[in-house]
C-alpha cells in the first residue's frame, strides 16, 4: 500500500529520482547534471527573463546560472529544494548582470505618488477557496494565467517576480529599479485585483466543477 502510494504519486517519485540524481552528480557523475536541471530549464529562463526583460541576456544569464550550479553542486544540501536553490542562483546572476550594466531606471516622483493613492476592493463576498489540487487541470491554470495577463504590466511584473519567482521584496525592487515602497503597493494591488478576477471567474463558471470545500460558501 505504502509502495503504491509512492509509485502513484508522480511528484513524490520525481523528488526521489531527483535526490538520486543529485547524490550521483555529487559523487562525480557529471554527465547526469543536465538530466537533473532539464525539468527546470524553462523556470530558470523565465526567472532570468522576468528580471532582465531581454531574451539574449536572459539566455546568457540562465546558462551562466546553470554552470554556476554545476560548479557548486557539492555545496547543495538536501534541506533545500533543488529548484529553489537553482532559481535563487539565477536570480542572483540576473541581478548582478543588471547592476553591472547599470540599466536600472528609478521611477519618477510622480509615479511614486500615484502608487500611494488608495485602492479599495470592490467585492466583499465570502471567499470560496480554490484548492491547489485544481491546478492539476490545464484549463484552470490557463484561466489563472489569462487573469494575470489582464493586469497592467507594472503590476504583473511585481507579482510575477515576488509571488511566482519568489524573489523577496528587496530583490524585486532592485530587479525592476523601483522603490521597496512601490513594490509593496503594486503587490497589494496585484493580489487584490487577481482576487477579484478569480471571484468573477467563479461567476463565469471557470471553477464550477471543482469540489466545494466544506464551510466555503458560494456567494
Amino acid at each position: 500500500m505504502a509502495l503504491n502510494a509512492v509509485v502513484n504519486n508522480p511528484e513524490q517519485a520525481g523528488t526521489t529520482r531527483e535526490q538520486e540524481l543529485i547524490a550521483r552528480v555529487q559523487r562525480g557523475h557529471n554527465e547526469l547534471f543536465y538530466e537533473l536541471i532539464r525539468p527546470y530549464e524553462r523556470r530558470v529562463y523565465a526567472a532570468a527573463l522576468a528580471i532582465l526583460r531581454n531574451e539574449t541576456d536572459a539566455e546568457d544569464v540562465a546558462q551562466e546560472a546553470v554552470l554556476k550550479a554545476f560548479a557548486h553542486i557539492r555545496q547543495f544540501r538536501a534541506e533545500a529544494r533543488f529548484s529553489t536553490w537553482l532559481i535563487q542562483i539565477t536570480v542572483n546572476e540576473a541581478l548582478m548582470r543588471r547592476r553591472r550594466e547599470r540599466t536600472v531606471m528609478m521611477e519618477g516622483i510622480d509615479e511614486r505618488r500615484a502608487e500611494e493613492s488608495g485602492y479599495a476592493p470592490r467585492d466583499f463576498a465570502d471567499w470560496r477557496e480554490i484548492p491547489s489540487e485544481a491546478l492539476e487541470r490545464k484549463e484552470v491554470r490557463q484561466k489563472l494565467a489569462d487573469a494575470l495577463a489582464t493586469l497592467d504590466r507594472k503590476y504583473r511584473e511585481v507579482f510575477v517576480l515576488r509571488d511566482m519567482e519568489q524573489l523577496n521584496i528587496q530583490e524585486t525592487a532592485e530587479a525592476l529599479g523601483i522603490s521597496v515602497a512601490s513594490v509593496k503597493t503594486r503587490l497589494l494591488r496585484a493580489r487584490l485585483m487577481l482576487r477579484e478576477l478569480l471571484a468573477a471567474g467563479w461567476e463565469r463558471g471557470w471553477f464550477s466543477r471543482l469540489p466545494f470545500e466544506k464551510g466555503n460558501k458560494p456567494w
Partner: protein
Amino acid sequence: MVDREAVNCELAWREISNYLEGDVDPALRARMDEHFRACKHCASVLEGARNVIALYSDERMIDELAIEVPAGFGRRLERRLAQTARLSGTRWSSWSAWLVPVAALALIAGGLRLANSLSDSPPFKFSQAQPGHDIPPGMVVVVSTDTDSKLFHVAGCPFIHDKNKVRTLTAKQAIEQGYTPCLRCMRKYLNVASDHGAELVGDGDSEAEELSAGR
C-alpha cells in the same frame, strides 16, 4: 505607531499584503487579527489574497506563463556544461554525445538523401567503398580539377564533370589524397553489398547528380 482605533477596513486593506508577508509589527498584527475576526468582508479579502498567492506560487503556474525557451537553448546549455566538465578534467558523456553517432547510423541504414548530400560525408561513402575494393594500386585513374568532387574515375567515365579538366594519377595516390572510387566506372572493382547499397551511396555523387540534372 498605529492607533488601536484607526484599524478600520481601509487600513486593513492597505496593510493586507504586508500582513501576508509577515511585514507588520506585532502590535498592528494583533489589531488586524482582531479586525479580521470581527469583519467578514475584510476576512474575505484576506482569504482571497492568501488563496491567490498560494495558487500562483505553485510551480505549475510558471509553465503557464507565455514564455518560450529559445530554440536550441538546451543543446547550447548542454554543450557548455560538457565543455566546463572537460576543462575541469572531469568526465562527461551525455545522452546526446552518443545520440549523434546513433542518429548517423540510422541515417546510413535508411539511406536518407539528406545524409548523403552532406559535404563532409566522405568517411561515410568511403566506409562502403574503400574496405572492399580490388582496385589495382597502380591503375591509372583521373580526378576532376574544376570541381570539389573527391571521386576518382576511369578515364572516359561519363560521370566526370568536365573531361577536359582532369588530372591523372594512380589509384593508390588518389586514395592517399582522400579520393574515393566512382561507383559507376569502378563498380567492377568494388565489393559493394548490393545494387541497392551502391545506389544509395551513388546518390551522394555530386557529379552524377549534376549530370542527371542535365548539366
